[in-house]
């Protein structure tokens, strides 16, 4: 393909792979692929949601009591932090379309800082649980709630929040690559922002999962 070189006056875009009819089709394929991947992620978490639903159905009292033992303030702060980080990730796409690479970097740095904040708060929540003994299965030793099914609640709690935290870490890695590229190379523009857009979509998925986990675990 000899069309790779940039003619002066046009906005440089990504390379067009030979098997796509046009750049439009190529971008469409990238988005569709991302949606397919996100669908598998949604179904991954759906397995844990099904566990939650089953055991909640069987042990409603243990579920209510255990849910009240969580720190609602920390959970709420974490929700606000994650929603705000999702907002800055969306703003990064906005600036990428305008070709303002510095702002893309700044927005992603803010997102990453909030992601670290989220994990730090989560760490303190975990630490408290290890201290008082609200742990999964046979490691449970909390005196405050002695109901059948309580250790199961914390199995679901730790499994789902740990899987979510793993996704936070993966999302941070993905966004870090775009951040470095925005600062160092600075080649995002109206024609070329797929990396920012798809990375940001992944981050929104992390937010989306937490939007459901938060009321399920902390509120009801």
């Amino acid at each position: 393909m000899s069309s790779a070189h940039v003619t002066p006056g046009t906005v440089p875009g990504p390379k067009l792979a030979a098997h796509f009819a046009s750049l439009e089709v190529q971008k469409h394929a990238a988005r569709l692929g991302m949606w397919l991947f996100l669908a598998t992620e949604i179904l991954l978490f759906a397995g844990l949601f099904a566990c939650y639903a089953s055991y909640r159905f069987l042990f409603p009292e243990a579920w209510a009591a255990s849910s009240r033992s969580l720190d609602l303030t920390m959970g709420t702060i974490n929700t606000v932090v994650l929603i705000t980080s999702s907002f800055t990730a969306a703003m990064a796409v906005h600036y990428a379309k305008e070709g303002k690479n510095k702002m893309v970097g700044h927005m992603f740095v803010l997102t990453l800082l909030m992601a670290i904040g989220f994990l730090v708060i989560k760490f303190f929540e975990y630490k408290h649980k290890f201290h008082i003994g609200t742990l999964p299965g046979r490691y449970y030793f909390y005196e405050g709630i002695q109901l059948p099914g309580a250790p199961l609640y914390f199995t679901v709690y730790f499994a789902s929040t740990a899987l979510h935290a793993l996704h936070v870490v993966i999302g941070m890695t993905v966004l870090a690559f775009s951040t470095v590229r925005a600062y160092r190379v600075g080649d995002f523009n109206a024609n070329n922002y797929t990396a920012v857009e798809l990375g940001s979509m992944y981050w929104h998925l992390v937010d989306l999962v937490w939007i459901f986990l938060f009321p399920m675990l902390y509120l009801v």
Partner: protein
Amino acid sequence: MAIANESHQEEHNMQEHHGAGRYVVIWVVLLVLTLVTVFTGRMHLPDFGLLLALVIASVKGTLVALYFMHLSEHRGANRLVFGVSIVFVVLLIGFTLMDFGTRFRLANPPGSQYSDLQAVDIGANPAEGRTGGHQQQIKQQHETHE
């Protein structure tokens, strides 16, 4: 060429540049809905508390998908993929619950709401049977540590 048309339409929608105001509005709405769900959650509504929390979460999730993830500007295939994944989530959880809801009573785990048995009835250690945790042994270890 339906696919090419769809790509063209999507590209056109994505290129159309909206102000940042739209994201700010969605962000504020998401924060307000978070406060609403915390407030209604703390009231511990007896029957429809879970339903209300899930409705609020679904509204928030829809806003994130439509505007932050740009699903409102995408066409055909992308929407189909997302929609089908949600349908499968509903099927998975729905059929699991239908199973539990219609079980022969003795098929439910001992100690659960729908069982006449306790864990000790099927031979569990009385100390462990109440919760399933090893509270006695671990508690002793815990105390010797302190």
